[in-house]
């Protein structure tokens, strides 16, 4: 009883994916050109996952993300301007420049933050799901995390509690085959992280994370299950990151071959979805080009905005450590 993606959904996913791709390509350039400080972990290649899941969510559904968080913010509805401003460490950023790439958040759209701690978001999403059940809402929480994170104790404890309490939580494991420079077979003796689900008493599903429609369908079932009060799902999406672990070229290590990268690019999530959109007559090539152009223009303007935004004033250094009653 799979949920069929309508034309509108396909277009919506496409828009989100292209937005992520362009946001990240531009962010990569900014980093390479020394325009933004710190460390950026780019999401390029994995766009189908964030987008295929996020089209099912509303602003009052919460997600937690990872160090590789831009894609999730964009897909959840984050604005380029505040995002770039945050990468620049500027006052107009989502976190007023205090958080940066690894802590980017937007509570208004249910984005409970990227997280610099691998696995750190999972118990928090479980807590959000707990609150949703406690408050008797139909909302869900989603935690995105990597294959590497599935070896952290936080994954284990949160998964067990989610299953125990039948929480409306979707655990989305983006298995891109690596934790930093360590290949999956060097960090766990299993092939499918989804195999862990049975040990908690929840369904585990493996899906092609390069295929937005497949992600959409699987996520749809998981979200529906959660909304119906039937509990959590572990959804593993097999995917790949095109760039290095950090930045574009990263440390320049030879931990994977160019052939491997090329192999995955053959199944590029955006190209695949666009072919489908053209085949089905939903979009023309020209319309697609225009979409890319429009979004590229958005990014350009957002970067200009970020460039112009002021740096936070050092006098505000100690603000927001605590909540202070107004």
């Amino acid at each position: 009883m799979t949920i069929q993606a309508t034309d509108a959904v396909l277009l919506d996913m496409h828009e989100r994916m292209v937005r992520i791709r362009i946001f990240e390509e531009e962010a990569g350039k900014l980093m390479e050109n020394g325009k933004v400080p710190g460390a950026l972990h780019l999401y390029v290649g994995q766009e189908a996952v964030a987008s295929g899941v996020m089209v099912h969510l509303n602003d009052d559904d919460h997600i937690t993300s990872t160090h590789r968080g831009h894609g999730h913010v964009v897909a959840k509805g984050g604005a380029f301007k505040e995002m770039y401003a945050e990468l620049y460490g500027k006052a107009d950023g989502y976190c007023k420049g205090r958080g940066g790439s690894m802590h980017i958040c937007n509570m208004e759209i249910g984005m409970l933050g990227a997280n610099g701690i691998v696995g750190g978001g999972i118990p928090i999403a479980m807590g959000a799901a707990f609150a949703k059940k406690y408050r008797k809402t139909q909302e869900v929480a989603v935690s995105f995390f990597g294959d590497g994170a599935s070896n952290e104790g936080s994954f284990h404890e949160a998964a067990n509690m989610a299953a125990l309490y039948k929480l409306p939580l979707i655990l989305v494991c983006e298995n891109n085959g690596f934790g930093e420079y360590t290949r999956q077979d060097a960090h766990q003796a299993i092939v499918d992280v989804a195999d862990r689900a049975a040990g908690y008493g929840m369904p585990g599903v493996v899906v092609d994370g390069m295929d937005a429609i497949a992600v959409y369908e699987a996520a749809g079932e998981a979200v529906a299950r959660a909304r119906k009060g039937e509990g959590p799902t572990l959804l593993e999406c097999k995917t790949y990151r095109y760039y290095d672990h950090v930045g574009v070229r990263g440390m320049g290590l030879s931990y994977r071959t160019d052939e491997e990268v090329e192999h995955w690019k053959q199944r590029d999530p955006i190209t695949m979805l666009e072919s489908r959109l053209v085949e089905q007559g939903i979009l023309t090539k020209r319309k697609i080009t225009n979409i890319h152009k429009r979004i590229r223009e958005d990014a350009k303007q957002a970067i200009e905005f970020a460039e112009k935004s002021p740096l936070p004033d050092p006098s505000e250094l100690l603000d927001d450590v605590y909540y202070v009653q107004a």
Partner: protein
Amino acid sequence: MAEAQLDTAQAERKLAYVNAITEGVREVLLEQPDAFVAGEDVAGAGSVFGYYQGLLEQFGPERVIDTPISEKGIMGLGIGAAATGCRPIIDLMFMDFLGECMDEVANQMAKMRYMFGGHAKLPVTVLTMSGAGMSLAAQHSQSLEAWLTHLPGLKVVAPATPYDAKGLIISACRDDNPVFVILNKLSLALEGPVPEGAYEVPIGKANVIREGTNLTIIAFSRMVHEALQAADQLKEHGIDAEVIDLRSLQPLDTDTIVASVKKTHRAMIVHEAVRFGGFGGELAAQIQELAFDYLDAPIGRVGAPFSPVPYSPSLEQSYMPNAKRIVAETRRLIGI
């Protein structure tokens, strides 16, 4: 009865520390529908220390929740639920288990609001049990407040009396920041006056519980009672000690401490935690900086020696700070 200035003397009714905790939590559950208690054996058993007993019956399993033995999960539950509209009361059975969830405490709970540029509010309260004295050995007897006070974003309180236990729990749960309430296991049976109904003990205000003229003893949690005893004994040696119960470690009521030391010219700091690297260092450093010209003697510190907490009563007794050691250390430092 917000910010009530209830005089402890007015309150006739006596209650044990353990029951004062229960009452504090009960008041919060009554007044805040978004508040719930979650932790290991808090519901069916009412905590292994007994202080939630009766709450499951009164509020039901949706608001008093037994969890798996998963401290990271439990703390995450508190953080996530607090960030999305609930007001969780999280029970960390023994403070010694902080190590199991220190990432959630230090990197998530304490920092989330700041990292998010102020766009998150975390009204979560953690109740946890500290202290030695029951032969529970190295992993069930620690006082680890120094890990927490070093973490911007957290508030930390440590009640010494039943009155403060109830009042600080209520203040903590009404606060929109994460607050740790550090309880003490040897104090559970301690009785003291506790008013009915809800009242607050302000977070960040120390309590001068004994006035004196030529020494200030600064203590918190159970050591307050040892400090009071020491003050009595010191009288015989011509020392008239003022005793300050900090109650709140973060924020710290530096003003009250410094004012007292400026008056008495001498300070002795007491905590149960290991002396080296303990919270007493911060206190001593602040006092000597802010009252330098007023000090007639070095600031003393009494704390546990530099070892894990031993099991054997013979060792544990000589390990734990007490009135006798406060007196001896005071005499040594002052030279009387």
